[in-house]
């Protein structure tokens, strides 16, 4: 166990993000730094222009796909469970279950184990390695869905909703808004698990990343890019596209589209309505409230730092449980993926 001083010496909050002085590295920095450890490939966590980058091979692959092969001065791949020494601390990456290649980062110093969760989830995902609990003294957890109203329903139920709608409305195209990295591929894999064996169509913007998943050995079945001329003929089919595309002119060419959106935010009716969604699918790549609480407990930590979302509720809960808890008011995350509510408006 480490004291407050020790933990906050080990990891400090700087304008660029979390920084470990003893190892001289940043984690998911917001601006270019000499040495960066990257938890996963979402653009708010993985940015270009760092000196050296340490991440899983898959995360490095995703970054190269997005920013080109020279996205950093030097890259080093690290396997899950592998331990490297950086300055005075040991560092290892562990599966976070968020998207392909996503990791939690464990920092081990003298008498102190500190885990940065990155984004994570514990629900089933056939497209990435499953989350592992990493015992620690200080747990720095995300809290994207850190309110007890967020309890994700069984996945099969949500996917069935979509399939059932295709059966009920065979004359309408079903456009499923899903974030390009991770969510889109997960929805495809879940559809396959639920027996959907028709081709799945995708928007051109997610083709590269989807092919990357397939090259990594993830079976998504017959996935086809939507050609412009095809659009009027896709009645009864499922088309996966970036969320913004459902409100685009692009979407108008489909026959009477049913607009679906796969996101944890769809749990809140007002959010679904604000986004003009007709078929909200509560499918999230983040831990829900119950999983956030369970994970804090299972980590065995004595201290929780909460970041990246609704911090107050989780801090309140942890304090009630007798843990030391504090919010980390970090800005700048949430530009991609579910970290940002669909339309928080101008707020």
């Amino acid at each position: 166990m480490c004291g407050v001083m020790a933990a906050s010496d080990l990891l400090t909050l700087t304008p660029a993000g979390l920084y470990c002085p003893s190892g001289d590295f940043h984690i998911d920095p917001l601006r270019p730094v000499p040495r960066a450890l990257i938890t996963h490939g979402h653009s708010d966590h993985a940015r270009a222009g760092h000196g050296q980058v340490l991440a899983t091979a898959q995360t490095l692959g995703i970054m190269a796909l997005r920013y080109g092969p020279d996205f950093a001065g030097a890259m080093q791949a690290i396997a899950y469970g592998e331990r490297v020494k950086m300055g005075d601390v040991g560092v290892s990456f562990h599966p976070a279950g968020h998207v392909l290649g996503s990791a939690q980062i464990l920092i081990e110093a003298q008498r102190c184990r500190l885990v940065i969760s990155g984004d994570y989830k514990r629900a089933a995902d056939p497209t990435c390695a499953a989350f592992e609990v990493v015992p620690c003294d200080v747990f720095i957890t995300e809290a994207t869905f850190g309110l007890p109203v967020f309890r994700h329903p069984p996945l099969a139920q949500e996917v069935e909703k979509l399939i059932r709608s295709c059966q009920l409305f065979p004359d309408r195209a079903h456009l499923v808004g899903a974030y390009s990295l991770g969510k889109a591929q997960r929805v495809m894999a879940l559809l396959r698990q639920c027996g959907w064996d028709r081709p799945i169509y995708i928007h051109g913007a997610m083709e590269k990343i989807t092919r990357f998943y397939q090259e990594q050995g993830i079976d998504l079945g017959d996935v086809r890019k939507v050609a412009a001329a095809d659009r009027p003929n896709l009645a009864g089919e499922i088309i996966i596209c970036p969320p913004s595309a459902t409100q685009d002119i692009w979407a108008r060419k489909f026959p009477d589209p049913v607009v679906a959106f796969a996101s944890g935010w769809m749990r809140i009716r007002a959010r679904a309505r604000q986004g003009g969604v007709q078929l909200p699918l509560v499918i999230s790549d983040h831990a829900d409230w119950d999983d956030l609480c369970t994970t804090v407990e299972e980590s065995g930590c004595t201290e929780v730092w909460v970041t990246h979302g609704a911090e107050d509720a989780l801090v309140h809960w942890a304090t009630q449980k007798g843990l030391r808890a504090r919010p980390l008011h970090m800005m700048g995350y949430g530009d991609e993926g579910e970290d940002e509510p669909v339309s928080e408006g101008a707020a």
Partner: protein
Amino acid sequence: MNRFAALLDRLAYEPSRNNKRRLLVDYFRTTDDPDRGYALAAMTGSLKFAHAKPALIRSLIAERIDPVLFAMSYDYVGDLSETVALLWPAPDLAHRPNTAPQLSTIVETLHETPKSGLLQQIALWLDALDETGRWALLKLITGALRIGVSARLAKTTLASLGNIDPQEVEEVWHGLRPPYLDLFAWVEGREPRPISDDPAPFRAPMLAHALETAQFETLQAGDFTAEWKWDGIRVQAVSGTGRDGAHVTRLYSRTGEDMSHSFPDMIEALQAFDDVTIDGELLVVRDGRVQPFSVLQQRLNRKTVSAKLIQDFPLHIRAYDLLADQGEDLRPLPFVERRARLEALFARIKPRQFDLSPIISFGTWDELTQARADPALAGAGPDADAIEGVMLKRKDSIYVPGRPTGPWWKWKRDPFNVDAVLMYAQRGHGRRSSFYSDFTFGVWRATAQGDELVPVGKAYFGFTDEELAQLDRWVRNHTLNRFGPVREVTANAGEGLVLEIAFEGLNRSARHKSGVAMRFPRIARIRWDKPARDADRIENLEALLRG
């Protein structure tokens, strides 16, 4: 219940009427009796049980969740039923009661269970339902089931199950009761049309579309008659004779709710008629003068109707249409013929507490425009205060239930306008729960300490989504204080946001600090340009108070 809930959930997001109908057809086809009948009743507002109060829902959740977490959640979600549905710590799937309650079980139990037993029963149901089921249950028991399906659509859908004219469903509807086994049997061709033996049935009313001034170009003045649009409540007064020869009289609301018990004096006056259905406006008339709506309001929604109340608020029906006379259905006749029958009927009976809605004479649209601008001068005299515009009816229009486009138009008086200063903003509900979208505004009033703002109303709409986002941002950037979901914003002579408020009328109100209450206020414009000190004063509003 979970299936019904899933239907409601899907309906709420589906904007297209046709697609709603398809969802309903699918539900009615694949759901058994009596559940589907109760579903139909829930959607058409035909279930009658005492609604649970929000306080009951709060007490249920208070036993189960930390108050701080509840407050944060409610603040975030904005809707009580939804918050509780999401927060409810239901046993996990393995420990949940293995069958979720049927809608029919819930409805029947709600009818039978005394209030004292309700709390425990609801908790048991909530345990057994999924999130959507819990949401729908809470909406149902609090009487807040608003799902974007009109009773008309539900009935049309039902008709389409069996290729029956929706009109026919409408006709039999009021003689039938949930769970409508006979109705489903009929539309599915298993049994003959149910016989409605109600001697005083409700007939679905014909409604008018709002008229935009520009539409005059397409309309011929000579095709229409005009009447005043009275600011009362639309009613249907029906008298009939039962099989046993008894005289039955009823007063229905526009939606078919039987309101007879609230208006015994009107029911008594209706005794003068045999077998008629009169369409008209319920008003309070004192000394021959129609009172404004605010007076009528004091007569409505009273639990007990005392002799004094009846005396102080003498009711009156101003009749404008006759739908049936001596058992003859007049609805297929053109308006002018029905009107002639109505006039003949009144000439014969000379009923007390009833009179004819006067016809406004006009030759051109310009003349009608003038009449609308000044009803007092155009024949309405002192009744002008209770007029909120004019009604246009095509002379050849047959009486069609619902809101057909073309035959009838309502042309409301222009709204009033006032420039007010935004004082408080509250988070909205439903679609707007993440936005500050309920705005309280005030006008200037002189006090011994100088001018101060006095709140005069609250507006929830009138702005575009984009303007809502701007208002929300302004509120967040100008917050002085927070009280739960409410924020007090900067509002003084030097700094404040001016809103141009449009409203339909003004009543005196003892409940409001300002002494006035607005009717249908909405934001007409955001006056980003106007300094707060130049907003209107309470005297401007007081000048509008009449009568």
